[in-house]
């Protein structure tokens, strides 16, 4: 088809860009302290050693055996994630090969890569749009602390835990696929401890 000059359709969006920029600035101002790790309860649980009901066990089994991953692959760590999905390490063995492009259908966000402030609102938005229950694995030093780029604080978020709560931290730059699988197994252990039937309690 003949495409004429249709610039006008796009460029009124300067306003839009300005709005986005404002959103980024706001987020930056609001998220300086890190979100505390959300698993204080885990220690209590572990120390009290409460036996889970069988229904809980079943639910947890289902949830931990089919963790579908949301797409959030900003940078280099993504390739180790793909390698883990790939033919040599094969995350599919744990039923995890399904990548859902839509966060509505995903359970786990593996933050494979550097998070910049420009990207932060999007990642936060995607995290917010994921249906619960949802988990986050911070992969790589960039995900944990900003890693090699942490000393460029004007651009890089010093760790995903400033934006979204993180369940498991996997150090490495990038972590080996085995390390990632180990982290995922830690997450599975954590899920297995979860209590779901909270009727009666809060």
């Amino acid at each position: 088809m003949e495409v004429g000059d249709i610039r006008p359709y796009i460029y009124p969006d300067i306003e839009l860009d300005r709005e986005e920029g404002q959103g980024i600035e706001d987020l930056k101002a609001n998220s300086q302290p890190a979100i505390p790790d959300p698993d204080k309860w885990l220690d209590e649980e572990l120390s009290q050693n409460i036996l889970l009901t069988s229904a809980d066990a079943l639910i947890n089994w289902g949830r931990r055996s089919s963790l579908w991953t949301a797409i959030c692959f900003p940078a280099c760590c993504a390739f180790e994630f793909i390698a883990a999905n790939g033919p040599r390490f094969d995350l599919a063995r744990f039923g995890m090969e399904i990548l859902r492009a839509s966060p509505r259908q995903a359970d786990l966000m593996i933050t494979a890569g550097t998070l910049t402030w420009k990207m932060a609102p999007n990642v936060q938005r995607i995290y917010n749009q994921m249906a619960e229950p949802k988990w986050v694995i911070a992969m790589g030093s960039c995900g944990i602390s900003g890693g090699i780029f942490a000393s460029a604080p004007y651009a890089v978020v010093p760790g995903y835990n400033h934006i979204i709560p993180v369940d498991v931290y996997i150090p490495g730059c990038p972590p080996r696929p085995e390390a990632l699988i180990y982290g995922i197994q830690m997450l599975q252990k954590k899920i297995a401890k979860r209590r779901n039937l909270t009727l009666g309690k809060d």
Partner: protein
Amino acid sequence: MALKTEPFVLNMGPVHPSTHGVFRMRTTLDGEVVVDIEPIFGYLHRGVEKLAEQRTYTGIIPLTDRLDYISSMNNNLAYCLAVEKLAGIKVPERAEYLRVIMAELQRIAAFLIAVGAFLNDCGAFFTPFMYMFREREKIVDLLEMVSGQRLTYNYIRVGGVSQDIPEEFLPALRTFVAQMPGFIDEYDRLLMQNEILLARAKGVGILTREQAINCAASGPVLRASGVKWDIRQADPYSIYDRFEFDIPTGTVGDCYDRYRVRVAEMRQSLRIIQQAMTQLPPGPVKAAVPHLIRPPVGEAYAHLEAPKGELGFYLVSDNSIAPYRCHIRPPSLINLTALRDMVRGWKVADLIVIFGSIDITVGEIDR
């Protein structure tokens, strides 16, 4: 058609399965047809050039690893070439050969990913990608053997390479070089003549010779348009003038040509590795370089043929331990400038394919 449909704006990315990271395209669509796109950068701007000004010359090498993270070795090499030019360091013979071997291995790995991701964008349900990843794992194994990391090698250093290769490296490399052509043939059988792939890629996203030259494209994108331009031969750096290899070129400049050129280059890289392996001399692998390099005041530009095109490092020194300015010429960014002309008037599906065929890495674009 005559009925005026109102184009609507759709965000592709930053979190989209096939934008190769966090690239965002604000596309204007008319139904399925792409009317216009506006690439939006900066979702991975990590301030590499700025960071480089705060680090020592050695400390920058890890940063270059993370620029185009699927061809780290080439980035390391380009940077080291620039520093060596700046400081006038002579590299030992054996190190040069090792550098060539590593760079070519990395090139194969990068092309494997490029081709795999391209085929994946065409909709081949991960299969070619998986096969190519399998072969990439083998290369990664080799590179891990010498450097200890799987992705960010930090291996090539100013004045040579960081360590000599272990003794089991060469036999493994030999096996690899012997096996690899068989696998490349297998990929060819898998999809090269597939009717659907031909329909999807042939004649799609044509970048003519003139256009390609005008927008300073380089690498396979340029060569697919029929320009025989490869810095390894046009301006031989390191020891590339000692090897014999061809420069595969395309004719039309469409997505299919870019795909074919990449596959053909893998074979050429294997040829280079073969030659380098047999000629590999003994000797030291690193020149005597002071721990903190202080190059004389001046500037230097070194470029090489990275998998994606011409990768250049421009360094300005003020005789301190950190560069005064470090500028990077990323091939992906320059190649990407052709995108808008290539996709307008095509369908959404073609947009993805064309985008995949350019083969970008966002880390390099945004830096």
